[in-house]
């Protein structure tokens, strides 16, 4: 109640100890610089998030690549002796152009598996309500891990296609919009990346369009295969291999600042 206390720092600067209210005000200012309305409160505490899930691991890799790129920009006047880092994003790539990159956790997963009539599929849904204001989507990717699966013919070709669910009907099949297709060998193992930019743009226009993504797997002769049997991992897979979505945003070129 006696006002802010003052003390002299060794260097001669007058230092003021902040009161609780001032400290909160300073933190609010820093959060405003980050574009956040308040301090985020992740639902699960930091300790229980280990071992890291697929999305944070991917984002950490991305952060390291971007941080490396920023360091290279700083050292632009110095001669490059060690060569171009392979981790750095390529100039002009989505991550290089982006101001904000958001990884979205899969909220809902539905399967029509081997116990259901064909065709088989897997559905995923993502919450895009917390996207940054004043930024537009430049690219969006859906990432899903393909394990070896239970195939007897690892050299056979599989067609994996991803659709946006455009409308749902109670009496007939949903309306679908094809987003991306990939052809791969049945024995392939690793991350598959699909371009879902069109869907994320629709979802950002209006939340009611966000009905999710649907994934189909077919053989060369058009037979539907259960995505789980083909080795595509969903929410029940290991945490480091669960599917997620990455959206790249770019800020509006307008120099206008939000008044605080």
């Amino acid at each position, binding site marked *: 109640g006696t006002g802010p206390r003052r003390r002299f720092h060794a260097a001669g600067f007058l230092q003021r100890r902040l009161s609780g209210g001032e400290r909160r005000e300073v933190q609010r200012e820093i959060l405003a610089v980050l574009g956040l309305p308040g*301090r985020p409160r*992740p639902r699960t505490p930091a300790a229980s*998030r280990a071992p890291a899930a697929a*999305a944070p691991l991917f*984002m950490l890799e991305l952060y390291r690549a971007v*941080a490396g790129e920023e360091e290279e920009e700083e050292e632009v006047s110095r001669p490059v002796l060690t060569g171009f880092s392979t981790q750095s994003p390529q100039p002009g790539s989505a991550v290089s152009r982006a101001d*904000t990159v958001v990884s979205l956790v899969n909220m809902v997963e539905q399967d029509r598996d081997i116990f259901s009539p064909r065709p088989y599929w897997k559905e995923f849904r993502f919450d895009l309500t917390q996207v940054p204001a004043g930024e537009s989507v430049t690219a969006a990717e859906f990432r899903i891990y393909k394990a070896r699966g239970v195939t007897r013919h690892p050299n056979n070709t599989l067609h994996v296609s991803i659709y946006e669910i455009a409308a749902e009907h109670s009496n007939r099949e949903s309306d679908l919009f094809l987003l991306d297709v990939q052809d791969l060998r049945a024995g392939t193992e690793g991350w598959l990346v699909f371009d879902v930019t069109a869907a994320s743009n629709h979802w950002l226009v209006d939340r009611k369009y966000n009905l999710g993504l649907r994934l189909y797997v077919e053989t060369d002769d058009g037979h539907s295969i259960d995505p789980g049997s083909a080795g595509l991992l969903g929410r029940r897979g290991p945490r480091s291999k669960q599917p997620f979505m990455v959206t790249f945003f770019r800020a509006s070129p307008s120099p206008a600042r939000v008044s605080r």
Partner: protein
Amino acid sequence: AAKPPRRRQPKKTNDLPHPNKLPGIFDDVHAADGRQVCRRHELYVSFQDLGWLDWVIAPQGYSAYYCEGECAFPLDSCMNATNHAILQSLVHLMKPEAVPKACCAPTKLSATSVLYYDSNNNVILKKHRNMVVKSCGCH
């Protein structure tokens, strides 16, 4: 025959830095009259000290800088001064009450990135384009 070389006087080590010396590299750069010239100072904001590491994933702290020091006429000690700053400093000498000294401010900024969790456990990588002070000068 060549004359034997004259012994050079040992260089004085306690000289004040010359006012024309470029600031920003050495600590405690002072002009001839003892005042500190406009230069870049180090500033580290620790996210750990702020208690933010439950939602900030990387970096652990924000390695930044700030500009501080005097922009007094003549500005030859600060090579990174605008033409206007030189004129303003001169006018300040004549009318110190009416015109303030030129300001020591960032002249070049670079980007930095922060990786953090939002309240839905989504992970966000945010790039701030003009955030880290790379150089300072008089404006």
